[in-house]
């Protein structure tokens, strides 16, 4: 049957229209946002490349030569000061021996190792008493850490032949 009375058109509810426009707006914003990000990313990439070029060009050849020279000199000074601090004066040991050797002791052999701070001293004395006095002098001295008697012989004429290790205080070489 043909309708004579026109039907009233169903109107879309207002909230549906609103939701449609909002969602369209969001879509546009996201697309625009992407475009803006694309633009800024390209710009930032350019800035980054510029910076990398600047970093690569920050030092000229001449400056790099100066840098190498300075670094070598710096290392040399550092090494030199370390060596100077550890520089040992082995002659101090002989001055020490001269000052602390008993008048009746005759030294026949000396072997000094400044790095290990030890010395092997061999000699002769008239008797044990003198040797005892000599050992006492060394043992009492602040520059001697310890004395180790290693060899003792009595000669034909009654003289004493001896050898001992002196373990030295490293300060003796300063």
């Amino acid at each position: 049957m043909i309708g004579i009375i026109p039907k009233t058109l169903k109107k879309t509810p207002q909230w549906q229209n609103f939701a449609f426009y909002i969602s369209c707006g969001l879509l546009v914003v996201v697309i625009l946002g992407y475009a803006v990000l694309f633009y800024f990313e390209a710009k930032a990439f350019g800035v980054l490349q510029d910076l990398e070029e600047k970093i690569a060009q920050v030092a000229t050849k001449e400056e790099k030569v100066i840098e190498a020279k300075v670094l070598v000199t710096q290392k040399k000074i550092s090494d030199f000061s370390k060596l100077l601090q550890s520089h040992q004066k082995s002659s101090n040991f002989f001055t020490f021996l001269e000052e602390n050797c008993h008048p009746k002791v005759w030294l026949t052999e000396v072997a000094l190792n400044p790095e290990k701070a030890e010395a092997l001293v061999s000699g002769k004395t008239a008797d044990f008493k003198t040797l005892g006095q000599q050992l006492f002098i060394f043992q009492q001295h602040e520059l001697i850490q310890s004395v180790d008697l290693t060899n003792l012989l009595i000669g034909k004429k009654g003289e004493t032949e001896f050898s001992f290790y002196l373990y030295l205080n490293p300060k003796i070489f300063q």
Partner: protein
Amino acid sequence: MKVNKLILSGGCLALTLILILTLTWPKYQAFKNLQLNIKVKEAELQSKQEYFSQIKEISKQLEEYTDSLNKISSALPETPSLPSLFNFLQLSASQTGLVLGEIILGGVSEGKIRVTCRLTGDYPGFKNFLLALENSARMIEVEEISFESPEKPTESFTFVVQIKTYSY
């Protein structure tokens, strides 16, 4: 044809979400990373510029200490300079009244040179020789010393000295 606006809205929102997840968010992350890299590179550039300006300043300061640096170069020569070392040993020995009988080269490695010298003479001369070694412009370390007194008082002492010196 009429399309329900509610469905269109849903489609738009779904598309928006997909675009955010697949394009905009990764782009944003990449952009943030780039900005971070720029900050790092800026800091690197600044520190490099400061470093080289400091190097220039130090280089200028070092020029004021040329004498001291020359002394250090003498103490630690760039090459082993063995002939000049042997010449120094011979000269020091003769100046202190000793006779340099033998020089044995122990080895040259890692900038360290070991030399053993056999000398004859008297004890005061030997002490002066040691002092000459200790006070030489070139850094010389005495590693070992040994000597025996002669059997006859008229004979000379024989001294064996092992030294260590450096090259740079």
